[in-house]
């Protein structure tokens, strides 16, 4: 096996780690809490990428059986699919909670720039 094709076998993992690192970069540079929340979503999607790369199986179908792939035929890993789908729905709600906190912060402090927010003094 050549070095190049060996490298592509680990490329999906590298993409997942890249998403994680670049999302963290956005969080450190953020000047707006809504932007921070979106960056956290990018970090979160790196976990989906990692789970999906681990569960992929060459030459097999979806883990949903039917007439073309009868029960027991080779399939990608359904456990990681189950993890990812609950993760997505729960992640959306947690984002909603953070957005609600942002609205609250804006009401109280008049800014949503995390670099201008200081600990509560009043």
């Amino acid at each position, binding site marked *: 096996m050549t070095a190049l094709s060996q490298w592509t076998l680990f490329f999906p*993992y590298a993409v997942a780690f890249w998403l994680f690192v670049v999302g963290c970069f956005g969080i450190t540079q953020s000047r707006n809490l809504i932007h921070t929340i979106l960056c956290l979503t990018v970090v979160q999607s790196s976990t989906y990428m990692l789970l999906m790369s681990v569960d992929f199986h060459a030459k097999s179908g979806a883990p949903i059986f039917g007439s073309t792939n009868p029960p027991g035929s080779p399939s990608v890993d359904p*456990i990681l699919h189950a993890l990812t789908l609950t993760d997505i729905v729960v992640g959306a709600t947690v984002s909603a909670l953070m957005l609600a906190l942002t609205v609250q912060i804006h009401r109280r402090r008049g800014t949503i720039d995390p670099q201008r927010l200081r600990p509560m003094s009043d």
Partner: protein
Amino acid sequence: MNLRVRTWVYVTSAVVVFGVLLYASGGLPPFGSFSGAYTDYILRVATVERSVLNMPTAINFDYRGFDTLGEEFIFFASVSGVLLLFRALKTKAVRYPEPMESERSRGQTGAIRLFPVGLLGFTAALGMDLGAHGQLTPGGGFQGGAIFGSAIACVYLGLGLLALTKLTHRSTFDMLEAFGAFSFAALGGAALLIAGSFLQNVMPLGQTGATVSGGTIYFLSCAVFVEIACGFAVLMIVFLRQTRETQEDEG
């Protein structure tokens, strides 16, 4: 810590973390060749044991049903948190004024107002279809609920906030959401009393491929559907009402 220091701290630690992760990925199975004993076992026995064709559904609502209970309560706690935060705001905000009939004056044409209404029926039907056939085809309570709950946005897009607040009753959605979360736990508790272990599949499994099959899997999926759909609807309503209140505050 100023921005420059922060950036340098980030860059050095990111290079280290990224390098370590890349090095560690060498220990992972190469892409496309992972094979777990648990996976192989589930793929072999799930259809025989539980009469379901959708493996992720079998895992979510049966083999790892207890994990889903935890996920479900994270969802419930998040929605409750949003409601709590906005409840705290309401005391500060000016008394919720009668929304103006401004949707028409925004200059929307009839097509723009009617299209989302047509979409509402389609989206709701798609959500129910996905939710009701989770054990057979791609779908399930989580996916169907998210789509069904999002259909409420069509009411806002087509008819505006006034219609949304008049047509929907938020506390009904609140109660239904709590009911969904409760019935998941209650089904698990009933199995504990009947069969001796929590969330055990105690109902008749039915014919593989039938609309109602898979025993408790079907009913747990429905409970999750109700909870997720109502949770999304509640989130949508409280956030959209918030836009109106902010507008009134500024104006």
